[in-house]
């Protein structure tokens, strides 16, 4: 795993990016810290790990075992899993220097599709999940078509899609939530409803038992598995495949990518399609979590997803970032939510804290941030002396 991740290019603290010398590429004498920084970029930025450790430390300091136990942690991550999956898709898009604002709406229609397929058509979850992913992929594809062939800026295209998809969602549902806890004639949940609940209704695990390392009694639910599987698969795609390379190239310099034989249009369409697909895929998880598909499900999730990517060191300018970084960013947000909730911090204060954390994260990840703060001071001291 470490070998995989160590190779993917870029993220905030790239080794050379911080040196700031425009000429004279003299040899660096790498110290231990330098070597560590070189190894880390692919794993997300060092700063985001520090952030994660800080959040955990605050959690343990304020709530002790109430925070640091398997049940609480898996609950927290499960609650955020669908947004984490969105963040992976959004990261792909951001890496190509685009943005996808429609993922929250697509998750909504994915969750509605899932509920309707279950309730009205009695499909098994094994069919529902791919169907929802396909629905999401369709809308994502349209996003890609709009940004490439119609040359609409992705912000505008996906903003429009956000609205269109939400409208369709509300139209097909008639503004009424669809419940998925189907009760059979015997008063017990039907077999299919029970299978659907496994997609994320609290208390339904895929595997549990004390034999399970790490998770033990708490068990592991589908949302957790899906989130981490998506992270691993897409990190591998980014760092190991030609397609992944092309994503970085398109985001880093689309002209150079095209002249190097990269089919830029295809890459952009593929990336939007994947983002939509992941959003659709996350829909059933969200429906199962609330045991119902709400026509407003997923509203505002796109902002959490973008925040997770940004906190994880992905640059909105494109070409820099990684899925591992985004996963860490998502973990920071979810655990932060949990810590604030456990401490009964008021919602207003939570909003303020989360906003500030995004700002702090981005500023800290700027290459050479510390140097920029120290240099003028040093100069003042020196010129004061001389």
């Amino acid at each position: 795993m470490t070998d995989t991740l160590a190779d993917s290019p870029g993220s905030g603290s790239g080794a050379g990016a911080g040196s700031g010398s425009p000429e004279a590429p003299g040899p660096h004498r790498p110290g231990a810290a330098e070597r560590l920084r070189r190894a880390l970029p692919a794993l997300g930025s060092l700063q985001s790990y520090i952030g994660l450790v800080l959040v955990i430390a605050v959690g343990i300091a304020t709530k002790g075992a109430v925070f640091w136990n398997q049940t609480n942690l898996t609950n927290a991550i499960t609650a955020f899993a669908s947004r984490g999956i969105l963040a992976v898709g959004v990261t792909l898009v951001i890496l190509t220097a685009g943005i996808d604002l429609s993922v929250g709406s697509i998750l909504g229609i994915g969750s509605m599709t899932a509920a309707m397929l279950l309730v009205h058509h009695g499909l098994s979850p094994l069919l529902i999940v791919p169907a929802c992913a396909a629905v999401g992929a369709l809308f994502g594809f349209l996003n890609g078509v709009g940004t490439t062939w119609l040359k609409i800026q992705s912000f505008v295209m996906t903003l429009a899609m956000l609205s269109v998809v939400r409208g369709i969602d509300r139209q097909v549902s008639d503004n009424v939530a669809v419940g998925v806890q189907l009760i059979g004639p015997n008063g017990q949940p039907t077999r299919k409803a029970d299978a659907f609940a496994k997609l994320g209704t609290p208390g339904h695990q895929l595997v549990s038992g004390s034999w399970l390392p790490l998770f033990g009694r708490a068990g592991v639910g589908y949302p957790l598995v899906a989130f981490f599987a998506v992270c691993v698969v897409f990190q591998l795609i980014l760092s190991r495949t030609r397609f992944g390379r092309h994503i970085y190239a398109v985001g880093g310099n689309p002209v150079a990518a095209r002249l190097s034989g990269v089919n830029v249009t295809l890459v952009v369409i593929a990336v939007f399609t994947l983002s939509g697909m992941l959003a659709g895929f996350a829909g059933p998880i969200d429906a199962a979590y609330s045991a119902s598909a709400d026509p407003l499900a997923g509203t505002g999730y796109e902002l959490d997803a973008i925040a997770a990517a940004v906190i994880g060191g992905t640059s909105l300018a494109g070409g820099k970032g990684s899925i591992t970084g985004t996963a860490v960013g998502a973990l920071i947000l979810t655990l932060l939510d949990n810590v604030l909730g456990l401490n009964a911090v008021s919602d207003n204060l939570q909003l303020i804290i989360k906003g500030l954390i995004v700002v702090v994260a981005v500023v800290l990840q700027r290459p050479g941030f510390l140097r920029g703060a120290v240099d003028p001071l040093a100069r003042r001291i020196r010129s004061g002396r001389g």
Partner: protein
Amino acid sequence: MFSHRKTATALLAAMIAAALGACASNAPKSSSSGASAGSGKTFVIGYSQSNNAEPYRAQLNAQLAYYVKKYPDLKLLPITDAHQDSATQVSQVQNFVQQKVDVLIVSPNEPAPLTAAVLQACQAHIPVIILDRSVNTDCYTAFIGGDNYAIGKLAGQAAVAALPGGGNVAELQGILSDQPQIDRDKGFRDAIAGHDITIAYHQEAKWLKANATTIMQQWLSQGTKIDLVYGENDDMALGAVLAAQGANKASQIKFIGTDGLAIPTGGIRAVQQGSMYTTFVYPTGAEQAAATAEAIVHGQSVAKKQTLPTIQITKDNADAVYKQYDMTTKS
């Protein structure tokens, strides 16, 4: 490349056409002030809804359409949806005033911003029925709404009855600044005051089910025993139910909700199935609004303030009440 762009344009056009088609099917079949064929004059009603996308309001819309139809000389224009935005709603109300509807029904998103718009209607001599939430003026014909304070108080009394030996209560609150939240919260606390009941936890879940689930999971992991959960709406109570079921603690906790909507995901069904202890119907007032409108257009006098009674849902009456309010079987 060019042909690609053409295909894409065609696709987009098709989508828009489909969307417009969907809208058109809901559009009115005749102009607003046109007289219908036959017996006599038709009176036009405009209804400005604050947000269609809340289950309660979707239910209200369905019921209003149903009850207005019962009066052959009343005609309901397409219900406008302000998407929870007061500015949008103001302009939609003004549109109805411009169209000179015979009766205007408004469910204000917020009192202050809508007051001026209601005053405009009043000055244009259009009778106004305020449904559910209030405005800061007396210049309307009738106010129809439930009493949130009373409902909160009933919920508190139900909690007292459910916990004869006292106990710990957790309260899931709606958006803190919403008036119904404030009233229900106050009613509930007033009712349990003096009894051996403590509110161990309370937090804003913004009326949302998923938020309530997450918050309830956090409460359950804290260790303090929770005997009863009061959700200021059914969605939040049901979100808490999910969390408790997941932690295998649902059987030890009683859940009280509010709203009692006759929809499959609503509180009535949950009470019927035993996952919730009780809930209280927050009446939509659609039936009364239609009757009031009919009375107004025929010049009869109407009560200026109509407070709607609530119904407590228990296992015994759940089925009957559900059937009474279920709109899917009527049309």
